Structure formats: C-alpha cells, structure tokens
C-alpha cells in the first residue's frame, strides 16, 4: 500500500512538474519576425541551439518580401505584440527608433559586453544606428547583404565566345572592371545563341511596387558620383541628387535596361532575377548577396558554371554598392523583452555567428568575416567582403517610405516607361524629396 501511495505521489509530482515546465516554456516562447526567404530557414535551424541551451522555444513569423514591409510596419504602428524580436529592414531604423517601436540597446550592450566595434562598420551604421553616425544602437547587425553580380562563368570560358568577344571589342571577355565594360558584355550576349538557346545580356532590378528599381538604380548611381545631400548642409539636395554625374548614371541604367534585359523584364526584382539566371536566360545577374548560396548550389547553373563579382567602377573609378541586410531588434511592445534580449546576447557570440555563416546566413561579425580562412570558405565569400567594403544605403529617415515611393515612381517612369529625360526625373526627385522633408519640418 505504501509503495502504491509513493508511486501515485511520484506520478502526480511528475505530472505537476511537467505541466509547470510546459507552462513556463509556453510563457517564454519567443516570436521572431522576418522575411520569408532562404536565410530565414537557416535561422530556424540555428535557433534550435538557442532553445536547447536556454529552454526558450522559438516561433517564427515569416512574410514574403512583397508584403514584408506592409505587414510588419502595420504591426509595429499598431503596437502589436506579435513579434518579440524583429529583423527589420535597414531603412526602418529611423522611424522605428523615433516612434518607439524598438528597444534602445545601448545599456544592454554595455552590461553584456557586446561591442559594436566587433561588427563590420558599415553594418553598424546601416542597421543599428539612429541618428546615423551616433552611438545610439537600436539593433544588432544580423544579416549582412549587398547588391553584387553573378555571371555565367561557363559561357565566359567558351573559346568561341571568347574569340567573338575579342574580335568585337578588342579585349578579353572577363569580369568587367567598369560599368561601361559591363554594358559591352551585356550587349554582346543579348540575343546571342549559346548552347542552342537564345540568351540575353543582364537581369537588373526594375520592379515598381516596393523598392526594386530604386535599389538597382542607386547601386549604379553611387559609382557615377550621386550624393544624397550636401555633406555640409543636410537635406540640401539640389546639385547633388540631380548632379551631372547622377544624370549620366541614370542614363546608363536606362541604356542597360533598353539594350540588354530579357523581354518583359519590366517589373523584375530579386525573385525574377533568380528565375532569369537559373533558367539560363542571362549572362549577368544583379542581385543581393543572399541569393548567392542558392545559385552556387543550383544543379543547372551552380558550381563551376557561376561566378561572382562586386560592382564595377563608374566613369571616375569610384566603386560603391547598395547596402541590403538587416539588424535584429527587440520590439518595445513585447512582454518578453528579457528573453528577447537573451536571444540577442546568444546570437552575438562568435561561435554562433560562425555557424550562422556556415548555414547560409551572412554574418556581420568581424571575427567571422576577417578570419583568414573566410575568403576561401565559399566561392562568393571574397566578393561579399569586397562588396561590403563599398556599401552605401538609401535614406533611413522616418519618412523613408515616402522617399522610396517617390524614387520608385521617378525611376520607373524614366527607365522603364521612357517618360521624360534623366535630368527631369532627378529634378523631379529633388522636388519630391524636398517636399517630404519640408512636411517633416526638417527643412
């Protein structure tokens, strides 16, 4: 009888304990919000280690890129509690900091010994700081990304193609050193038959709805000498945004679109670019670095068939690239901020960051990317490093959405629809952006 009582008592205790543990785990489950793309799957894999170490479960809310900004900015604006952690786009930082959506992380970083100097400088400025270039941190650099190029290495190596190129341009067919050379290569491949199939020059960003055409145009304009504002007088854009050099850059982008893109590529962004490259349609492909691991692994166009290169130089030899990527932030409306901070502390560790890179996540930690073995760790690793060294980003002001929509319209109207001139498009952009900053009381 005594043993039965003991047994019953033991079972009851075990049941009670398991219920309590389950309850506490449920209470501590964190929800992380991000875009639905390949790196998100890698993060799910990586986060299993966090759960194993801390007992805190991880739930994920991933939204496709086309709805990513709408969905999560709505969530933040309505002070929703869906996300405890959010990997928000770099341009959201101004609005999210000023509107109180993100928890300021300075005290936490100081307490936990997390140093921003341990992360790639451009990613700290791009993903974490607001106001820019001040030590006010709202996120931890989570995923480094940058626009670069992939090309069909196997086509470049074909003797008959090399000979035809040399005959036409008087130089060897190789990775372009300048944008002018890039256009020559794209023109050379446009409509050419390769392996019995008609191929095209380049896939570039032309998407109208979200941010596509702006990311593509900016990626080129920077190297042509475009500046957002007078360095000595913030928000003074006249003569900088619409400088002669910027006009030349925009004209170049339109010329590249007109001469060398596949038919119907008038609304092309990341997904369409990947499709064009994977289906063997294009010789050159502009896209963010996050696409590179997938292309490298692709059975049809990956392996030895694909090569990577950073943005070539503009007419004056300047080289810049459009920054992508995001930082991870704690949402100020979350009831689980302590657990969320625990996740950030865990994520910042060098060994976790190393694993993050190995799973396909682009780490921003210097200990990872400056490791001597890093450039050889993947075929695209060096291009990633080279590209990250030359990044520039779009406005990260609280009004970034309005600023972006203005540029989307001006660029798409000119580049794709062929309305007006490059000068008119950029003059119009200065007018739009000035109005927005005036509305904000910044001018």
């Amino acid at each position, binding site marked *: 009888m005594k043993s039965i009582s003991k047994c019953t008592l033991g079972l009851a205790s075990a049941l009670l304990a398991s219920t309590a543990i389950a309850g506490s785990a449920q209470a501590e489950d964190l929800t992380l919000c991000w875009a639905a793309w390949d790196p998100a799957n890698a993060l799910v894999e990586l986060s299993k280690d966090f759960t194993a170490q801390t007992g805190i479960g991880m739930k994920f809310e991933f939204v496709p890129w086309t709805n990513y900004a*709408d969905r999560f900015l709505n969530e933040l604006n309505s002070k929703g509690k869906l996300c405890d952690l959010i990997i928000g786009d770099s341009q959201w930082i101004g*609005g999210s900091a000023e509107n109180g959506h993100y928890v300021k992380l300075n005290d936490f970083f100081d307490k936990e010994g997390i140093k921003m100097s341990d992360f790639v400088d451009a990613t700290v400025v791009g993903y974490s700081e607001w106001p820019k270039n001040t030590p006010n941190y709202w996120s931890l650099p989570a995923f480094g990304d940058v626009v670069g190029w992939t090309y069909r290495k196997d086509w470049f190596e074909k003797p008959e193609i090399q000979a035809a190129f040399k005959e036409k341009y008087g130089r060897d067919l190789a990775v372009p050193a300048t944008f002018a050379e890039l256009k020559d290569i794209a023109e050379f491949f446009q409509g050419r038959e390769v392996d019995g199939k008609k191929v095209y020059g380049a896939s570039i960003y032309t998407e109208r709805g979200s941010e596509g055409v702006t990311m593509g145009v900016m990626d080129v304009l920077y190297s042509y000498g475009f500046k957002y504002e007078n360095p000595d007088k913030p928000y003074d854009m006249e003569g900088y945004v619409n400088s002669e050099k910027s006009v030349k850059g925009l004209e170049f982008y339109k010329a590249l679109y007109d001469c060398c893109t596949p038919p119907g590529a008038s609304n092309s962004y990341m997904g369409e670019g990947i499709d064009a490259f994977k289906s063997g349609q294009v010789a050159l492909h502009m896209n963010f670095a996050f696409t590179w691991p997938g292309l490298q692994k692709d059975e049809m166009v990956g392996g030895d068939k694909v090569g990577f290169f950073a943005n070539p130089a503009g007419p004056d030899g300047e080289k810049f690239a459009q920054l992508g990527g995001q930082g991870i932030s704690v949402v100020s409306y979350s009831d689980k901020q302590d657990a969320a901070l625990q996740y950030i502390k865990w994520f910042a560790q060098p060994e976790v960051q190393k694993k993050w890179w190995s799973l396909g996540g682009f780490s921003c930690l210097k200990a990872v990317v400056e490791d001597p073995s890093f450039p050889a760790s993947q075929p695209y690793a060096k291009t990633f490093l080279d590209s990250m060294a030359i990044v520039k980003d779009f406005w990260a002001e609280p009004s970034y959405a309005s600023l972006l929509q203005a540029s989307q319209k001006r660029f798409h109207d000119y580049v794709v629809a062929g*309305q007006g001139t490059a000068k008119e498009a950029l003059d119009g952009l200065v007018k739009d952006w000035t109005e927005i900053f005036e509305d904000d009381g910044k001018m």
Partner: protein
Amino acid sequence: MTETNASLLDRAAQAAARSTPEPVARRVRGLSDKGVAWLFIAPTIVLLLAINIFPLIWAIRLSFTNYRANRPNAEVVNVGLDNYRRILTDSDIWFAMQTTAHFVFWTIVLQTLIGFTLAWLIDRKFRGHAFWTTIILVPMMLSPAVVGNFWRFLYEPQIGLFAYVVSFFSGIPPTDIQMLSSVRLAPWAIVIVDTWMWTPYVMLICLAGLRSIPDYIYEAAEVDRASNWRQFWSITLPMALPFIMLAVLFRGIENFKMFDMVNLLTGGGPGSTTEVASITLKREAFEKWRTGFSSAFAIILFVAVFGLANIYVKALNRVKSR
C-alpha cells in the same frame, strides 16, 4: 380558417406566451409596435454605424489633418482644406484619374457590345445554348487574383500563349509582343482581361432584359410585317435598354474602384501607365503612409462615384418611365 385550426393556433400562442420568461414578457408588453420594430433593427443599425458610418466620418475628419498612421506619436495638425487643394492640383493624381477614365470607358464599351451580342445570340435558344451559356459564364466565377496571375503568365513574351497566338496570326516575333512591359500595350492588356472576365456578367443582365420582352410584341410586329432589323431597333433595344444601363452602372462603379486585377497584372506600370486611382490611393495610404492626404483622396473618389452614379440612376429612371 376552421375551428380546429384556430384552436391549434391559440394553443401554440399560449404555449409561446408561457415559455417567454415573465420579466421579459412584462418588459416587452409595454412596447409599441414601432418600439418592437426598432428593437429588431437596432443591432443592424449599430453594426452599420460601427463599420460603415463611423469609418466614413473618421476618414472625413482625418482628411483635414496631416495624420500619418506610421507615426502614432507625432502631433496631429489641422491643415484645413490643404489636402484637398494638393490633390486637386497634383498632376500625378489627374493622370491616375485619366488612366481610370480610359480603363472604365473602354471596358464598358467592349463589355456592353460583346455582352449584349452574346445575350442576343444565347436568346435564340439554339441547340446546346445552355452548355454554351455555362462555358461563357466561367470567367466571372473565378477570383480576380487567380485571373490576374493566370493572365500574367499568358502575357509572358517568352512562354505566354497570348504572345504565341498573336505571333501566329501577325508574324511578329512573340518576344516583341510585350503586353505588360510596353507603355502602349499595357493599358489595353488590362482592358482585355477585364473584358474577358466581366463580359459574361453584362451578358447575364442583358439576357434577363431580352427574356423579359413579351413574345406577343414580336408577334404583333410580325403581323405588321416589320423586318428583323426594325424589330431589333424598335422593340429589342428600347425594351432591353434599362437592363443594359443597369449593367453599365454596375460595371462602371466596379471598374472605377478596380484594384486587384491591375495590381496583379502590372502593379500600375510600366512607369505609371496603368496606375488607376485605387492604386495611387493604396500607395498614398499604405506605402507612403500619408493617412490624412489619402483620406481626402478617398473622400473625393467617393463623392465622384456617388455623384456620377446618382446622375446616372436619374437617367435610368427616365428611360424606364418612357
């Protein structure tokens, strides 16, 4: 009514009265018929006020402010009629209105012509007409999201069937037929899809109109030896006209606020070539987050549709009373 039935009804009424809780019954007993009627419609009215009238009043209020939904902490300033002035003097908004007018005009013209012709043919009641009616109705039963995606693939210059069919008949290479990328063709691409999808709807309404014409009128015309053409102009068209006008009204209102199909097909592009008013409104409200400005724009669109529809309904009534 027989005595048995009456006693049955009495018993049922007494049973209902007994089953009503006394306090409720006592309370209800004091209400007039009008009071009971109000009691029944009150939930609906409350619901309507909450989901229709209140948001409308709220939007009107916001339209006079600089409110932005993405800046909940920012000070909301009353800007008077400034938003309305900016909208009415904004060349981009006027361009969007012109694009909308082009879309509405051509879809209505094509759908009415084709829809009425199809209805007239179906009304002949030929062998298998029921089968063909069902086939013709299929497009309008599909979701606009499905139709948008489906036609996007059909219009693809490299793999799309549309380009190949046009190429087959015209000899133009399919890759040159860029329906969604060409500034010249894109507005027509959305007109074609909308016509494909909604002509059956116009056809149905016209068919109802044609079937409502009594046969004896045609029989009288036959006796008078009126030609088929004369019968069509003097009987068919005038008597079906109120139905045609109704179809035009429905399609006009629907297409004035067209969003989903255009968004899926072109997203307003290339450039702003197919940016109809609803796409501009969505961009202002949910991409630029200019909530006050977009509220003013929504009010202007509402007044425009409401005003035009009212004028049209008056014309319709005049035609019906003839």
